[in-house]
C-alpha cells in the first residue's frame, strides 16, 4: 500500500505561525477523528459523538472549526509551539516544515517491534517573512486568512476523494489503528514531526522526530 502524501505551503509572519499551523492541523484532524468506539457483544460497536468548536485567530483574519476536545487541542498546541520555537531560534528568515502523519501499526513477532506503516502524510511548508510596518501587517493578516481558506479547501478536496482508509478494526486491534488515549474523541493514530531549514536551504539540525502520541511504549 502506498502512502498518500499531500504538501501544503504557506507564507506567514512569525507571530502567525502558530495559528496557521493550528488551523491546518486541526482541520485535517477534524476529518480524521471519530467518536469513541464502544464494543459490544456479537462483534458490534457503537460510536460516540464528535463535537466541534469555532476558533477565531488573533493574528490572522480567519476562523476555523476544530474538534471539541481539550486534550487533543493541548497535544497539537504543544507540537506547534515546539515547531514555532525551533523556527524562531533558527533565524528570522527561516523556513520549516511540519508533518502530520497517519499510520497504523502492524504486529510483528517477537523480538521485532511493531511496525508503523504510514498511510497518509500531510506536510505543511512554512516560509516566515518579516514585515516592516503595521500597514503591511494588516494586509498580511487578511492575505494569510485568504490563503488559509484556500488550503482548507485543498484539504477538504483531498479528503473527499475517499481514498484508502484503514479498515475498521476489531476490539483487539483498535489500538493499532486509532489513538484511544483521549477520553472524548478517537483520532486515527498519528504523529507530528518537524524540520527546520535556514534561509540557505540547508538543514541546520538533524530531523527531529518527536513522537507526540503513542499508545504503546516501544
Amino acid at each position, binding site marked *: 500500500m502506498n502512502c498518500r502524501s499531500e504538501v501544503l505551503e504557506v507564507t506567514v509572519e512569525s507571530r502567525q505561525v502558530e495559528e496557521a499551523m493550528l488551523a491546518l492541523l486541526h*482541520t485535517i484532524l*477534524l*476529518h480524521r477523528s*471519530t*467518536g*469513541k468506539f*464502544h*464494543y*459490544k457483544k*456479537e*462483534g*458490534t*460497536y*457503537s*460510536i*460516540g*459523538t*464528535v*463535537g*466541534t*468548536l*469555532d*476558533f*477565531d485567530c488573533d493574528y490572522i*483574519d480567519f*476562523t*476555523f*472549526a476544530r*474538534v*471539541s*476536545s481539550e486534550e487533543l487541542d493541548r497535544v497539537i498546541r504543544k507540537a506547534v509551539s515546539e515547531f514555532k520555537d525551533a523556527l524562531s531560534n533558527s533565524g528570522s528568515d527561516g523556513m520549516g516544515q511540519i508533518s502530520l502523519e497517519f499510520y497504523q501499526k502492524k504486529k510483528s513477532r517477537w523480538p521485532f517491534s511493531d511496525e508503523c506503516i504510514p498511510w497518509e502524510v500531510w506536510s505543511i511548508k512554512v516560509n516566515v517573512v518579516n514585515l516592516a510596518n503595521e500597514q503591511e501587517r494588516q494586509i498580511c493578516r487578511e492575505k494569510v486568512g485568504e490563503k488559509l*481558506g484556500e488550503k*482548507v*479547501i485543498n*484539504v*477538504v*478536496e483531498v*479528503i*473527499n476523494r*475517499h481514498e484508502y482508509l484503514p479498515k*475498521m*478494526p*476489531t*476490539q483487539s486491534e483498535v489500538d493499532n489503528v486509532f489513538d484511544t488515549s483521549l*477520553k*472524548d*474523541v478517537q483520532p486515527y493514530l498519528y504523529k507530528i514531526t518537524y524540520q527546520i531549514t535556514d534561509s540557505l536551504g540547508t538543514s541546520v539540525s538533524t530531523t527531529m522526530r518527536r513522537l507526540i502520541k503513542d499508545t504503546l511504549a516501544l
Partner: protein
Amino acid sequence: MDRDLSPQDKKDLDKFIKFFALKTVQVIVQARLGEKICTRSSSSPTGSDWFNLAIKDIPEVTHEAKKALAGQLPGIGRSMCVEISLKTSEGDSMELETWCLEMNEKCDKDIKVSYTVYNRLSVLLKSLLAITRVTPAYKLSRKQGHDYVILYRIYFGEVQLSGLGEGFQTVRVGVVSTPVGTVTLSCAYRTNLAFMSNRQFERSAPIMGIIVDHFVDPPCSGQRPATMGHPCNYRAPDEEDGFAGVQDSQEVCTTSFSTSPPSQVGCTRSFLASFTFICFCLCPAALAGADLCHPAANPNQVLHAGKEGGVLLVPAYPPHGADAHLTVEHAPNTPGSRYISPDITSTRDDGRRSASPTDPVEALNAFTRKVGAFVNRPVTQITAASLDLPFAAFAPRGLGSEENDPMVQPPDSPPCPSPLQASLHSQGSEGSGPQDDFVMIDFRPAFSKDDLLPMDLGTFYREFQNPPQLASLSLHISSQSMADDLDSLPEKLAVYEKNIDEFDAFVDMLQ
C-alpha cells in the same frame, strides 16, 4: 437501478439522505448566525446525533427545511438549495451564496450503505463545517447587526444562481457515491460584493423620506423580485412553543456497526436490527400533517435571546413607520419554496412567553404579532390594534389596503416628531409639530419645584443657557496673552535656573 439494493438498504439510504439534508441545512444556517458555534464531544453515543456529529437542531430551521422538501428527497434533477443573502436596514438585499445538495446518476452498486455511505456522509458534514467558515459570507455574517442582517432561504428543485452576480465562484465540498446516485455538495458564492440591488431601479419616489418597498405586498402578487429569506437568527424555544409537530417527527438514531466482514449477510442483518427508530412514515401527507402548518398561518421566526450558546441578536432597527415589511409569495417555478422575511426584534419576550398556546397554529400566529423589520404576517389575521409597535398608525392594515395605507397615501397632518425634534423647533414647547403654530408652554424641567427657592431650576437654566464666552477663550485675548507669555519666557527661565536646586529637591521628594 434500485433492483440490486435490498429493501432495508433502500430504506436506510433514504433515511440517511433525508437526515443528511436536514443536517446540512442546520450547519449552513448555524454558520451564518453571526457567532461562534460550540458543541461538546461525547464518548457515549447519545442516540440522537446523526452521523456521530454533535450538530444542534434549530427547530425553526428544521421546520423550514422539511417544508421545502415536502416529503421528497434530494434526487436526480431535484436539488435542495440553501440561499444566503444579505439585507440592509434600508431594504436593499443581495444574494451572497447558494449551497446545493444535488444527486447525479453515477452509482456505486458495490458500496455498503449502512457503513461506508454513512461514514462518508459524516466526513462530508465535517467538510461542510470547515468550508462554511471559509467562504466570504462567513465574515459578513459575523459582523451582521445594525447595518445589515443575513437571511436564508431553502428551496427545492432547480438551482438558481443568477442572483450571485457575474464571476461567482464555486467550491465543491465533497461527493459521496451511493447505490442510487452520487450525492454532491457544493457552494456557489458571490465575488462581486459591490452593492447592486434590482430593487433600487424599481423603487418609486420616496414618500416622506421612507422607501415605498418596505410596505406590505399582497400575497402571491409575484410582482416584486423574491429576495427575502429568514434571518440567520435564533432563540432557544420555550417549552410552550408550538413546534411540537416538528419535534414529533424527529427520529432517534442509534448507530451500531459490525466488525464482521461485509460478506456475511447474517451479521449485516444483526447490525441493521440494532437501529432503533421512532415510527416514521415517508408519506408526504403524513409529513405535511406533522408540520401542522395551517395554510393561512405564516410560520414566523420567533426570536428570543439564546439560552445558551449566546446567539447574537440582531438589534431592532431604528423604528420608523416603514418597518412592517412582509411578503409571502410562492416563487414561480419552484414548488415548495417560500420567501419569508420574519421578525428579528425580540424586545417583548415576556409578552410572548406568557402566551402558551396549545395549538401550534395559534403559537405561530402568536409569534407573528411582534412586528419589526422583515416580519412576515398574514394581513388578514393581524390588525394594527393587536400590535404593539411604534408608529402603529402606519402599519399596513390589510390586503389590498394601499389606498388606506398612510405611507402610500400620506395623511394630511404629518406624523408627530420626536420630543427632541420638537424642542429644537420651539423653545420650551413640547410635542408640537413643525407645521403647527408655536405654543408657548412653561418649560418645566424634571424634579423642579416653584416654591422652594426664589430661583428655581428652570429659571436658572434659562438664565444661564447662553452664557458669555470665557475671556481667555477669545482669540483676541488669547493672542495677546500668548505674546505676553512669549515675552516673559526669558525672565521665567532665569528664575527657574536660579532656583534649580529647589526644584531638584522637590522632585527627589516625590520619588
